[in-house]
């Protein structure tokens, strides 16, 4: 990826040599933050507090522009075609790394070439939870049962390509099992079915499951992060519990149309570093089961590239792409 890495550098030089005054003044006008989901969607829950607090730090209003539809692709395409002057930003999530492999995006946008990564914001793992009536107490027992009854244990998830669906598909591939995949129009209805016992297994976000786990309506077998999470200290990671290498986290970050002035990126990053330590932001992220993650710009670029690669493989191996 040397060419991509060089791009921000080139723009940095360009910005520094041609318009030093303008760059120093950034932001000179309100900034548009495109959130490619509806108000209340996960990208919105994470993006909205960022708009508020980052706007305060930058001294300019950040206007939230919700452009929902087509699993974030409508808003993402819109952002890819916006001017790359630093006044249009986009909130991206795991869907950004999955959609290119599920849908034909030719002529619309390219996740690498059309955007410059700006900053990572947060990440939140999934939780493998089962209805207590399922006679398993840990990940290994679940795998054993699933191997005994292939395609019989009901796994409820939101639609194809959703975070719930991806986490489960990854588990199927890495553990070498097959569930009975039952899909719902949203994560909420899927959880209701698992709590009610119509289906038995869910790979859902922390926020959707924690209350049910604490009250005993669901049994948590593992979390999809590298380390255990503070809110569920007794729950092992899926990695340590029997599926080495398993990791499924939803994540959120900010990107800008490719070729955005590096001075603007730097200014945003500088203020974001402060915003991401503010308690209200941390609390509102918790609403989506997300914890703040700070990365350097280069790390974030590498992270996106790695996620793209990871989910390309999962989409291919699980055959989830609709033909």
């Amino acid at each position, binding site marked *: 990826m040397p060419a991509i890495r060089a791009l921000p550098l080139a723009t940095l030089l360009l910005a520094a040599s041609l318009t030093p005054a303008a760059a120093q003044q950034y932001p000179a006008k309100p900034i548009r933050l495109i959130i490619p989901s*509806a*108000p*209340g969607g996960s990208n*919105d*829950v994470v993006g*909205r*507090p960022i708009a*508020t607090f980052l706007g305060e730090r930058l001294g300019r209003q950040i206007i939230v*522009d*919700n*452009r*929902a*539809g*087509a*699993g974030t*692709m*409508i808003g993402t*395409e819109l952002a890819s075609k916006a001017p790359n002057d630093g006044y249009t930003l986009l909130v991206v999530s795991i869907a950004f790394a999955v959609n290119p492999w*599920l849908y034909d995006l030719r002529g619309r946008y390219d996740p690498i070439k059309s955007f410059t990564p700006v900053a990572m914001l947060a990440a939140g793992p999934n939780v493998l939870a089962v209805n207590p009536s399922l006679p398993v107490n840990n990940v290994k027992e679940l795998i054993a049962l699933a191997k005994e009854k292939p395609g019989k244990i*009901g796994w409820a998830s939101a*639609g*194809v*390509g959703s975070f719930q669906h991806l986490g489960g598909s990854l588990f199927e591939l890495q553990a070498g099992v097959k569930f*009975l995949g*039952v*899909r*719902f*129009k*949203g994560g*909420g*209805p899927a*959880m*209701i*079915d698992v*709590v*009610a*016992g*119509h*289906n038995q297994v869910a790979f859902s976000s922390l*926020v959707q499951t*924690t*209350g*049910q786990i*604490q*009250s005993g*309506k669901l049994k948590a077998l593992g979390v999809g992060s590298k380390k255990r999470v503070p809110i569920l200290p007794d729950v092992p990671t899926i990695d340590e519990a029997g599926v080495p290498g398993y990791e499924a986290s939803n994540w959120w970050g900010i990107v800008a149309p490719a070729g955005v002035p590096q001075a603007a990126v730097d200014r945003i990053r500088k203020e974001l570093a402060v915003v991401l330590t503010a308690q*209200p932001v941390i*609390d*509102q992220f*918790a*609403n*989506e089961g997300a914890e703040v993650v700070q990365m350097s710009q280069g790390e974030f670029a590498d992270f996106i590239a790695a996620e793209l690669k990871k989910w390309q493989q999962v989409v291919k191996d699980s055959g*989830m*792409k*609709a*033909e």
Partner: protein
Amino acid sequence: MDLFNNLIFGFGVALSLQNLFYCFVGVLVGTLIGVLPGIGPLGTIAILLPITYSVSPVAAMIMLAGIYYGAQYGGSTTAILVNLPGETSSVVTCIDGYQMAQQGRAGPALAIAAIGSFFAGTVGTLLIALFGPPLADVALKFGAPEYFSLMLMGLVAAAVLAQGDMVKSIAMVVLGLLLGIIGTDVNSGVQRFSFGIFELTDGIGFIVVAVGVFAVGEIVNNLGERQERRVLSAKVSNLFPTWQDLKASAGPIVRGTGLGCFFGVLPGTGPAIASFSSYMLEKKLAKDPDRFGKGAIEGVAGPEAANNADAQCKFIPMLTLGLPASGVMALMLGALTIQGIQPGPQVMTQRPELFWGLIASMWIGNAMLVVLNLPLIGLWVRLLQVPYRLLFPAIMAFSAIGIFSVNNSAFEIHLTALFGVLGFMWMRLGFPLAPMLLGFVLGPMMEEYLRRAMLMSGGDPSVFVTRPISLAFIIATVLILVVMVAPSVRKRREAFTD
């Protein structure tokens, strides 16, 4: 008496000055957004969520809940006045409410909608307080087969909706079903009828279709007539319902409340089903069903009560189990998380002030809504005296703003315009609109539940008759068919004996 103590405790919480204030703000905002089509409680709550951060959890929940059920009240106002459904659940109100307004009876229609909603809200609140947890457990017994059988019963009963030409009604139901399946298939992720257009991959929004065929279609139809329509300025009879109106509405309100509570408890039913069912039931029970669609007050009273009871009871799974039945409920659970309260069944016992305070506030909020809405009726009715050439551009503008605000999408405005033209054509050709909307609502849900049930049973259709709740609905469906077919058979026999 535990309940009594709990309710007193709840009212103690809800009647504090701060909580009363947030309750009022909530229902006021709710009423306002309810009037606008498109922008609904979901978007509003998402945008207002940060405000709740600085207030107590109880006040936050009280305000957000107020927005939600307040919107159900507001939605019916424009439905009755100008045939513009402000919320999904008020589509049914358009059918007879608007006809009443046409006949100069907008006042009684608005008043009966408010009264019916208040009654339903009161019953719904009591139901949550008395039976919340056991009802939630019953609701969880409903899996895919139960929901499918329930909806099958609904669709069969909907044949009652058929008015006039049976073939045209069936054609419209099927058309509704077809429109409903546009978008991404949940099971496979396959795109259906989206023609590579991104905006169609999530399907067509219900509010787009409803505003298009009702509000826009009606405007095109009105403008097609030569003379400028006098909007009933001359013959506004009375603002409030007569004794006779109240008597005619009492039964529908009670039955609508019952239906609304039933559907409200079940998280897997959408917002329009309760009001549709109530409308169908009233039409079936009426001595002269021909009045329906021509300004029958029962057709406003029942569905309005039903949709408010439904909205109220949708809180049961959320409050007692911490499970979100809809996007709005998920956001409210999110608001709790922000406050550091982990949503779940334990909230009821660990934070009783939250549970009982919220319940008490719902009743107070409903009372506020009546007080807020009844005096406004005079104002609303006077709005109808605005000349149509000024009124219709305003309706168009509000429709467009509302539709745009859902997804900030110009595409959906174009789609609304398209449905406006189609709605006008259907109206002119005598194709009924209600069956189409019913097919549009029920079709995709039935498909989803049927396929899910078959998937989970391994392709064995006996699952619908071996599960007791499902079997009960199937039997009821057969009974409805018999009851409906019997009269026509008898008539034919009579014809033979003649």
